[in-house]
């Protein structure tokens, strides 16, 4: 049961509290309070980060900066206002429900490091750098997330913000498979960004959620695709390659066999949607 509730206002204050109390940080509480109630987490100390003085969401040096406490809805509004019309909005609008998006935060999502985290997938696609305080270091998302639920942080450190690349001229596709429109924790998800030139790949990024211990993205495989012609054959090859790379588990949402089939089929479906084809 919660006995201590703190409202630090500065980075140092927050860091010291975290170090001394070993308490749980929260902003929207959409994850922490569910886990506390279910008994998955037991703590007597929670630290409310919303009183921390931070700047807002901003674009700086062609990067999108999302600070701690910025909610999904604030991010969505920012994307619309600044016409950053990209896959990010497609991803954000599928997260939780309006009530969750009014409280939940991207920083919270990556800090939970779930392989099903939709914002974790977005962070992999946009080569996110994670800004950590009070050390002021920046680490790439793939080094920040170690394994399901495990992140690379010292006892006194916390995530201050996320920096994403701003990509233009990319075609994109995002889909998550689940049982209901709202509140889905995906059975599997896919995000693809493609930049093409004369029907050839100029740049490509492919990421999958919920089919491996962390988000599945293979940059070496992506590099071998540059210059290749975009056609049915290429995507059938990719469907098979990613199916081999995936290592899903069976859980309450689906079996590993089903998830394996999804990886294959989502690649083909992405091709059909991106290039208006009808390959089965």
């Amino acid at each position, binding site marked *: 049961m919660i*006995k201590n*509730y703190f409202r630090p206002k500065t980075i140092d204050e927050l860091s010291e509290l975290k170090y001394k109390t070993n308490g749980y940080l929260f902003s*929207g*509480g959409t994850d922490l309070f569910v886990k506390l109630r279910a008994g998955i987490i037991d703590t007597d100390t929670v630290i409310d980060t919303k009183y921390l003085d931070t700047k807002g969401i901003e674009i700086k040096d062609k990067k999108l900066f999302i600070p701690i406490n910025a909610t999904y809805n604030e991010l969505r509004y920012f994307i619309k206002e600044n016409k950053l019309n990209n896959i990010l909005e497609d991803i954000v609008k599928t997260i939780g429900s309006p009530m*969750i998006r009014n409280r939940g935060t991207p920083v919270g999502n990556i800090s939970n490091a779930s392989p099903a985290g939709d914002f974790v997938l977005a962070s992999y696609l946009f080569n996110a750098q994670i800004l950590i305080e009070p050390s002021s270091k920046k680490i790439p998302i793939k080094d920040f997330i170690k394994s399901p639920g495990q992140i690379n942080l010292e006892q006194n450190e916390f995530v201050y913000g996320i920096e994403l690349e701003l990509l233009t001229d990319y075609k994109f596709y995002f889909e998550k498979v689940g049982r209901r429109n709202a*509140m889905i924790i995906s059975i599997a998800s896919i995000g693809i960004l493609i930049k093409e030139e004369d029907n050839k790949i100029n740049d490509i990024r492919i990421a999958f959620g919920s089919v491996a211990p962390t988000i599945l993205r293979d940059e070496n495989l992506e590099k071998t695709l540059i210059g290749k012609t975009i056609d049915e054959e290429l995507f059938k090859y990719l469907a098979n390659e990613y199916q081999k790379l995936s290592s899903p588990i069976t859980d309450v949402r689906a079996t590993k066999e089903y998830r394996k089939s999804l990886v294959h089929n989502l690649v083909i479906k992405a091709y059909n949607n991106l290039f208006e084809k009808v390959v089965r």
Partner: protein
Amino acid sequence: MIVKFKLNGKEIVKDVPVYKRALDFLRDDLGILSVKEGCGEGECGACTILVDGKNVHSCLMLAVELDGKEVITVEGLEDKIIQNAYVEAGAIQCGFCTPGFIISTKALLEQNKNPSSEEIKEALEGNLCRCTGYLKIEDAVKLAAKMYNKGSDER
């Protein structure tokens, strides 16, 4: 911990234990019974309240987080247009989910005077109803939007 906030237009100052959820605080200590506990984990939306104009789950919020905020529940809506529209459209059966739907409807109509079916579905996707099948709820939101717009034409 002492919290000070506005509930349905009224200033509240009260001492509340830090472990208490906003939901329990509103229902048990302040008698706001429109706020219901369904799932207690953010899936059903029956506990939805407006905090500074945004619809949020009161079950996933501590009472101390209400400090300094402006809270609106169905009891505090300035008119009964949405409630009447729900009755008129037959969008209520057992009624347990209704306050949550009304609050989410309010949050939508404050932002969007003429929502499309698609926009209504998205705005209400966090609220579950096990009786009506949702179609009449969509009708109710459209009816409420019409009634609000008619009202502003007359003014």
